[in-house]
């Protein structure tokens, strides 16, 4: 069991995370360097290249040492718990390295005066993806219908269920844990399913409305990239919502014993339903990049080197947390990474932040149990 967990963690978490951290700088939009607002031209600067090399070296070395230590101590004590806790520690290596290089980049920017002699502006487009370009929200009817059917089946079957119902299955679909029949045991799965669909629905609305940060030296290209990226992410959200919804429905049908599956089928279904969204996510992230920076747009737009994004470094605390009470926006693209974060200067942002910390803390705590 220990060796299995070790290999599983190594190949599904440690190694992918190492590669992710090393490649991440390549997928960030060209007007940001480790969370610092810069003009695109300085990316070719010798000092910038050295900085990027330094980040990669630091990350590689620190990650390998930390993971090496975790595996060494876990191995000595034959301790699976330490192996799982190690994931949290290993994931923290990236933000720590990032903060270090972020502060260094900030100093370099001030010393080199990259923004001097350039006009700082904010560019926006008045026609953000005129609604028809976005995938229709009606696609959410599919997961909605699946959810309704799951609930209906459960309600119809509920009176006929035995006193002990299956709660947990192993990968081959064999029941490994039974529980007493009751609302929470019979409806736990449909409830999580409903919560998931609502969450994904909210996410896709958020993506459509999130703040658009355009590169003022190439605004037309940047608008196209931004809108294409958003379209892809909304489509992905709908796809993932459907798959997850289907997965929950499948599990629930096994709990209320409407279907009984063979070991092989269950294994394949599990792997496909879990792997499909993850693989799509990876492909999408690689081909899209932050704000669609990896999308090629065919415009022959000249670059206006005099314009640069308004310097907003001061609002990004440690280059991670956006805090700007003057900005009414709630959701904004991450500074370093692909995805969105909240404006902590907005009261709703603070509430969402607190909820996230509680959920994260709880899930970390539960891995240590």
């Amino acid at each position: 069991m220990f060796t299995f967990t070790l290999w599983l963690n190594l190949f599904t978490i440690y190694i992918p995370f190492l590669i992710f951290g090393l490649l991440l700088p390549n997928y960030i939009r060209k007007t940001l360097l480790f969370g610092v607002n810069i003009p695109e031209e300085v990316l070719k600067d010798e000092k910038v290249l050295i900085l990027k090399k330094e980040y990669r070296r630091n990350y590689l070395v620190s990650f390998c040492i930390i993971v090496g230590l975790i595996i060494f101590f876990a191995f000595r004590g034959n301790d699976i718990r330490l192996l799982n806790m190690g994931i949290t520690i290993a994931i923290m290596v990236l933000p720590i390295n990032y903060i270090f290089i972020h502060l260094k980049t900030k100093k370099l920017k001030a010393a080199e005066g990259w923004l001097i002699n350039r006009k700082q502006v904010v560019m926006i487009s008045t026609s953000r993806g005129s609604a028809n370009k976005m995938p229709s929200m009606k696609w959410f009817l599919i997961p909605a219908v699946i959810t309704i059917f799951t609930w209906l089946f459960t309600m119809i079957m509920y009176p006929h269920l035995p006193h002990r119902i299956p709660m947990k299955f192993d990968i081959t679909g064999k029941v490994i844990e039974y529980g007493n029949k009751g609302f929470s045991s019979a409806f736990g799965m449909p409830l999580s399913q409903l919560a998931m669909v609502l969450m994904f629905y909210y996410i896709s609305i958020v993506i459509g409305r999130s703040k658009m940060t355009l590169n003022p030296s190439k605004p037309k290209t940047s608008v196209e990239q931004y809108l294409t990226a958003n379209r892809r992410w909304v489509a992905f959200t709908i796809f993932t919502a459907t798959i997850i919804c289907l997965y929950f429905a499948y599990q629930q049908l096994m709990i209320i014993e409407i279907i009984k599956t063979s070991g092989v089928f269950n294994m394949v279904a599990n792997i496909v339903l879990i792997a499909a969204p993850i693989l799509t996510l990876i492909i999408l992230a690689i081909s899209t990049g932050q704000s669609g920076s990896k999308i090629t747009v065919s415009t022959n737009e000249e670059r206006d080197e005099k314009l640069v994004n308004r310097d907003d470094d001061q609002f990004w605390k440690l280059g991670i947390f956006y805090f700007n009470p003057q900005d009414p926006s709630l959701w904004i693209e991450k500074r370093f990474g692909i995805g969105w974060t909240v404006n902590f200067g907005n009261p709703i942002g603070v509430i969402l932040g607190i909820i996230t910390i509680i959920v994260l803390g709880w899930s970390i705590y539960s891995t240590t149990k």
Partner: protein
Amino acid sequence: MLLKIEFESETPIYQQIKNQIIKGIATGELAIGEDLPSVRQMAADIGINFHTVNKVYTQLKQEGWVVVHRKSGVMINPDLKAELTEDYLQTLEENLETLAAEAYLRGVSKEDFHGMIDKKYSSFIGRGRK
């Protein structure tokens, strides 16, 4: 249409947005009946207070450039008829006077000043509305 906002400029932000929207109508970049972002959306995209954008839309509405529907949002006035009023002519003359005064003091020649006005005005002819 793209809007460019300079936070460090002497021109207030609401004025910058308003000027660019009127210019957009004149150049045809903003079509008659075209939708504009909601107050919330524009304020969030630029990163400024709702009131600033509200002021822009209120003024544009009063002057007849846009219409605001409670449901369908803000759009460029579909029956845009910008009339030449006495009041407007007076404001225009006053504004021009200020501009000319400063240009004169800074040593812009009369010909250059003329040329600039000519160029700007011509750039709108045959575009936008009619």
